[in-house]
């Protein structure tokens, strides 16, 4: 039996975001050995096949440093010397770099899978020690960070050609990454996967005579485009469409508070702070329509979840959203930065018949089942890892 692959899934922190945790879980169940390094934020149960080498406070950093300095001296002194020389050349605090790097060097995974592209300059060195580097291309790190930060754009252009494999969350982001010299053949689009058994489809009896229950979900950030959503609410209010709108994830944003205060329909608009996943899912189930007003996204997970649950989605056509939503087929797609188009779509939804609503949401569920299942994602990721190593063998 071949030795199982050792994969480091690295996001800097443990536990990481929901979708990275889900990825780890799936990969472990595939029999891959998953190594996790970085800062421990809180306790997380170790799954079978998953190994944590973490640190938290200053003391554990120190102990970690001592342990791995010793182990490397004992078993791999040449590599340690090589890495120390590299660290010396960096401008950063070398102790912290050693705390971060030594465990990775010692455990030497077959593939180091970096989840956030921004960190690429910190990890490109792993290739000098026979470790393959895979990088995920997700939302902001590709879509706008390098536009605002030209130095980062230069770093991408310089280092992307060296990366062994890319995982792109959408076709759109793969295209965007190509602008920074990512080799196209090395990019594989793997759509985010959902555990569909946990997200059961709910056939809603949509009633166009009751007030429209609208929801948006996402963190408090300009890229979510809530300003346009509020403008759109003002417009549908002008047309006497009765509605309730809730934004979850935002509770004290000055700009949005001000914009709401300017609207006649301000009492119908609620801002709710951070909620846990199950509460959010319940709100999505209860809503008639989920609005994604973003100006930029990879593919928004919350849209996938709403589509799985049977809640109709209106989304802006940003990032990879048009790879999931086909306008008027399984949801509505509107141009970015266009509150009028958004309000038109809301108006269309408000007069849908129960049957039309159901047809759209059933289509949406089908899309998710075909394109965004958890199993599919894990299989594709597994293939990606194997193909990287196969290529290496051929070389």
């Amino acid at each position, binding site marked *: 039996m071949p030795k199982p692959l050792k994969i480091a899934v690295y996001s800097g922190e443990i536990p990481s975001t929901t979708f990275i945790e889900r990825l780890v879980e799936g990969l472990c169940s595939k029999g891959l050995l998953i190594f996790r390094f970085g800062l421990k934020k809180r306790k997380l149960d170790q799954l079978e096949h998953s190994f944590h080498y973490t640190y938290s406070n200053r003391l554990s950093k120190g102990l970690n440093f001592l342990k791995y300095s010793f182990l490397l001296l004992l078993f791999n002194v040449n590599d340690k010397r090589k890495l120390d020389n590299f660290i010396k050349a960096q401008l950063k605090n070398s102790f912290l770099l050693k705390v971060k790097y030594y465990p990775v060097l010692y455990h030497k995974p077959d593939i180091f899978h970096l989840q956030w592209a921004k960190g690429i300059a910190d990890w490109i060195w792993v290739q000098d020690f026979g470790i393959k580097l895979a990088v995920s291309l997700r939302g902001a790190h590709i879509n*706008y960070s390098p536009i605002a930060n030209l130095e980062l754009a230069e770093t991408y252009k310089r280092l992307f050609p060296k990366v062994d494999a890319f995982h792109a969350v959408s076709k759109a982001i793969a295209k965007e990454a190509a602008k920074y010299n990512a080799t196209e053949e090395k990019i594989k689009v793997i759509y985010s996967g959902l555990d569909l058994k946990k997200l059961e489809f709910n056939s809603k009896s949509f009633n166009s005579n009751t007030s429209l229950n609208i929801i948006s979900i996402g963190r408090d950030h300009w*890229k979510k485009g809530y300003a346009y959503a509020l403008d759109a609410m003002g417009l549908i209010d002008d047309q006497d469409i009765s509605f309730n709108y809730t934004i979850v994830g935002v509770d*004290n944003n000055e700009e949005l508070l001000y914009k709401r205060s300017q609207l006649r329909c301000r009492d119908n608009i609620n801002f709710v702070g951070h909620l846990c996943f199950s509460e959010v899912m319940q709100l999505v189930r209860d809503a008639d329509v989920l609005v994604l007003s973003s*100006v930029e996204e990879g593919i928004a997970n919350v849209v996938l979840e709403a589509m799985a649950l049977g809640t109709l989605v209106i989304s802006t056509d940003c990032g990879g959203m048009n790879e999931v939503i086909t306008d008027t087929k399984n949801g509505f797609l509107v141009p970015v*930065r266009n509150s009028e188009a958004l309000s038109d779509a809301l108006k269309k939804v408000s007069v849908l018949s129960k049957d039309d609503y159901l047809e759209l949401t059933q289509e949406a569920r089908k899309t998710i089942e075909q394109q965004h299942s958890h199993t599919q994602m894990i299989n594709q990721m597994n293939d990606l890892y194997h193909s990287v190593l196969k290529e290496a063998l051929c070389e």
Partner: protein
Amino acid sequence: MRIGIVLPSVPAYSETFFVNKIKGLQRHGFSVVIFASSAGTKEFHLSKFKLAPKLKGSKVSIVFNSLYILCLSFVFQFKKSKRLYLLDKKDGVGFLQRLKNIISSYHIFSEPLDWLHFGFGTMVFNKENVAKAIDARMAVSFRGFDIGVYPLKHPSCYQKLWTKVNRIHVISDDIKELVYENGFGGESEIIKITPAIDTSFFNYEKELHLAKESRFVTVARLHWKKGLVYTLEALSILKSLGYSFHYTIIGDGAEKERLQFAIHQLNLEGNVTLKGKMEHEDIKKALEDADIYLQYSIQEGFCNAVLEAQAVGLLSVVSDAEGLSENIINNKTGWVVPKQSPKLLAEKLLEVINLDDEEKQKISKSARERVINQFNLTKQAKEFINFYE
């Protein structure tokens, strides 16, 4: 007359508004003291200034310093401290907060004053009784953000103020309305004094030559309330219609990334320059190099930058946010467009670009004249003297 002005920081010389107000009062024989929370600028010779006690650093040093100041106030300012303590007590302020209020107002106690004037509404919190404690009258200025945005996060934050303040200064009629909307019941007099600019500094009669390429300019912090994203969206409509233009934004701030992304996404990279912060002298030059001034704010007190643009003879297109519709008389000294609608702004810009030269000159001239006559420093100084008398 002895006036004390409470500000977040000692005004820099570029903050013409305060500097000129102070100069005007002094010329009239008033004495002025500034009470600031932080120094900001190192050299300030215009008037006496006093800094609020700094309570920063480790817990030990904060406690130590607080006790020290508390001792000083009870030894040297016993009467005023006691009065403040009792007034706060009457208002139901908690014991610890009462002590804190004494500490944070200690720097004000030692000055004999006729008026204690809070330069922004937000400077007033926990100092509502200080004027009475030192036997001075109390004035507060409202300038926009403090009454338009701050109370949204802190409802009823001025409730206590309304019964204590002797005179309220607002910079526009819309701000006055907001004061009423925030629970003011006419307990004292409200006086409007609009901002003013140094019209001699902007003494420049512009030859408008709206040639092939329109040159737009905005001077603003990169802050959401300035509506710069909407402005960019309007300009992208012009671009899609084949108009050629250049837009310069002067200023820096938290929204830079958002704007950079908008410029990229709207395909305006060749049409827009983010200049960052500039010196007053350079701003003037940049204004002189432009034809149309844009101020499509979401929220705005009055906006000095629009006054300066008019003084230089630019054509101004602004939103109808609060004081802006007073700053510009629609169709006479510029154009006022309903806010938050890129489409309407784009339509108006097309209209302005396509006006004949004579009409443009007429608007530019009336704007300039109106600013010179109505928004000059001499007039403002007089109004402030009346405000206190």
